[in-house]
């Protein structure tokens, strides 16, 4: 499954700028499972694509094939599609299958047939046709911005890239901006209403309360916020302190809504960070066109989460050239994250496994804190290197690592996961498990990997890659003297040693 790793030189050309598979999956996550079996060349005839459209006839066992076409690069920015199948949802599985086929590079460039040309012409003349054709489905378009929805990171303008390439900015049409502003105003009002009636009100625990808001945010094309709302709803009623956590998250949502409404007034890196968190996307091809950061990257850890039936994998990389940094605001500490996505139950991309060390080009997304990246050309795979405890760049102390994370959060308080590498021992504080060293302690987010963590540490300090989250840190990797234990693989379901010295 394509991911942020790997650029797509072949994706450019007469066939237009090809989408990444995850972009297609995000169009309609709920129909991915039914579309996948159709995303094979054998199910299609008369396929073709150009810089504007992709088309084909889906055979799918019927005597009369469905005629499918999609406008993948509309000037107004809204994806549109058309299919002769009777489905009332859009995009239907045939559209998703065709888009997947195209994203996989299995659709050749060709001149558009008359019906496609006429449809594209109509769309170009009448932007209103967009809404008619797309038959927008509230529930599914949420995934359109999944990269940001994972909560993951703050994309950032890398210094080299900023010097030599035009700034990356999400293109926002006036119509979209109007809808977005209306959605953000609605969000602010909704948060105020929740606080007015109180978090103790029974409505807060009703699924519909949150889901309706998320759907409205999807309509406003603020998919990042919609996903965040759904994540917050998952915390309601969980744990004794859920009110505190939900309240804080509503506060962060309020910040994002306020910042989003002022988007045009913000300066570039701030605007990029806010836009990404809201759900405005930057084209992958534009990111890949930036001047890369070439370094030796170590895959320090990974975390998989399931959101709305999509599995999101974050692979945390760290530049081995980077010394453990002194904490300073905005310093990413040499960290970067690759995101990959798969429908639940499907295999996740794993070309950059935990413990892998590669010399490669990295292209960073824009933003204030430059974490999210695409991996470009891989120059060398260091198969002889293992990320053992003596090799990985460890922060000098827990306090220093927390300050480093704090610097990133000062710039983007809505970050939900930030990596750090520390040397610490698991221990108990007031009945709860924490990681501690001489400078302080960090609460564990949950006990999921506690047995392996304890077995690896035996009560002593060990080198760990962890993810900071608002509710505590989640261990991802234990770096021992002769091996690396990967705790974050959702497929394995348990921890696993993945590398060792020869």
């Amino acid at each position, binding site marked *: 499954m394509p991911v942020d790793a790997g650029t797509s030189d072949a994706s450019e050309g007469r066939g237009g700028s090809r989408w990444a598979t995850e972009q297609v999956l995000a169009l309609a996550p709920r129909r991915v499972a039914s579309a996948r079996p159709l995303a094979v060349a054998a199910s299609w005839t008369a396929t073709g694509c150009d810089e504007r459209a992709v088309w084909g006839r889906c055979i799918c066992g019927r005597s009369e094939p469905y005629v499918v076409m999609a406008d993948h690069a509309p000037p107004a920015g809204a994806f549109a599609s058309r299919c002769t199948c009777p489905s009332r949802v859009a995009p239907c599985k045939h559209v998703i299958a065709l888009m997947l086929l195209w994203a996989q590079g299995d659709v050749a460039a060709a001149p558009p047939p008359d019906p496609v040309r006429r449809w594209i012409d109509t769309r170009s003349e009448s932007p209103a046709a967009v809404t008619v054709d797309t038959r927008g489905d509230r529930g599914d378009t949420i995934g359109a911005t999944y990269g940001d929805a994972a909560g993951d990171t703050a994309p950032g303008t890398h210094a080299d890239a900023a010097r030599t390439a035009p700034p990356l900015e999400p293109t926002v049409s006036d119509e979209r901006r109007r809808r977005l502003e209306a959605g953000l105003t609605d969000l602010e009002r909704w*948060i*105020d*209403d929740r*606080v*007015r*009636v*109180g*978090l*103790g*009100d029974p409505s807060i625990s009703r699924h519909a309360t949150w889901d309706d808001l998320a759907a409205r945010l999807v309509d406003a094309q603020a998919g990042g916020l919609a996903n965040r709302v759904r994540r917050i709803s998952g915390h309601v009623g969980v744990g004794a302190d859920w*009110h*505190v956590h939900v*309240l*804080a*998250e*509503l*506060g*962060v949502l*309020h910040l994002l809504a*306020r910042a989003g409404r002022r988007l045009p007034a913000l300066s570039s890196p701030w605007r990029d960070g806010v836009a990404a968190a809201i759900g405005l996307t930057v084209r992958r091809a534009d990111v890949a066109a930036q001047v890369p950061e070439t370094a030796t990257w170590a895959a320090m850890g990974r975390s998989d989460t399931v959101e709305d039936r999509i599995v999101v994998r974050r692979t945390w990389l760290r530049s081995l050239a980077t010394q453990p940094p002194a904490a300073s605001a905005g310093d990413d500490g040499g960290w970067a994250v690759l995101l990959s996505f798969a429908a639940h139950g499907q295999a996740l991309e794993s070309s950059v496994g935990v413990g892998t060390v590669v010399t490669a080009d990295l292209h960073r997304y824009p933003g204030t804190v430059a974490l999210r990246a695409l991996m470009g050309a891989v120059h060398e795979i260091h198969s002889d290197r293992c990320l053992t405890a003596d090799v990985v760049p460890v922060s000098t102390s*827990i*306090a220093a690592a*927390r*300050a480093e994370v*704090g*610097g990133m*959060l000062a710039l983007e*308080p809505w970050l939900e996961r930030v990596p750090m590498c520390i040397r610490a*021992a*698991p*221990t108990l*504080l007031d009945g709860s498990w*924490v990681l*501690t060293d001489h*400078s*302080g*302690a*960090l*609460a564990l987010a949950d006990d999921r990997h*506690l*047995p*392996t963590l*304890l*077995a*690896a540490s*035996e*009560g*002593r300090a060990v080198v760990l890659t962890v993810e900071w989250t*608002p509710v505590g840190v989640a261990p991802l990797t234990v770096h*021992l003297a*002769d*091996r690396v*234990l990967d705790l974050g693989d959702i497929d394995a379901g*348990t*921890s*696993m*040693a*993945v*590398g*060792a010295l020869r």
Partner: protein
Amino acid sequence: MSPDLVTAAVLGTDRREPPMPPSGPVAEFALESPARDAAGALVQTVAITAALDRAASGPLPPTPLLVPADRDPRPLCPVAAGVLLRRILTEWPELEREWLHLVERSGHRLSPDLVPPLLARHRSDPSQRATVCALAGPVADWLCDHVPALGPSRSRASRSSATVPLPNELAAVVDAGVEQLLAVIAEGIAARRYTVASGAVVEHLVAHVPPDRLGQLAIGLEELAVELPGHALVHRLVDLVDIRSMMHRLLGSAPTIPLEENP
């Protein structure tokens, strides 16, 4: 987040006035951009407080360490052996005992990622649990002290301890050479006595062929696989011998556990 703030948010600002924002940046911000009502003021205070907490709060105070487990001087078993064990537990659980036996003979201890799953797996099997604890070393008891869910269970062993009865023709070749064993297997397969459904006895026998004969057995089974392409039982036997050979390569050879000792 102050308790007063949380209480006002839980009760709702219709019923409880929000507290004044704490002095400092939160109060300054409230002065700069006054909210239109009490709910707006509370949300604003929460937002700034949350952002400040996340960015500026330090770690918890240092905490005393647990009394650590005693050190175990034995080296950890190779990573590849651990990977193999995971496959064995899924596909060939009958080989687990041999794997543990080889680790013991090789002087290794269990890699930490294997200790919790093996302790959990043998909670109600005192014999296997004792083997796992011995191979894990002092960390096993230490771990169970801190994670009671990994401790021994008093429920009855869930796994059957019945031995697999060998058919006469197989019993006759238990101690015979590989050629004879292969001939009996080939004849049984040709006569359709041994299929995947009824091949457990053959697999059981092959799982206990002495390690020094595995190479010869592998060659014979490969030839059989060529003669009987697509025969599922033959392929399973090839896989079984392959895994056993790999296990012995990784952990060093050791005498095979005799059939009668195997549960």
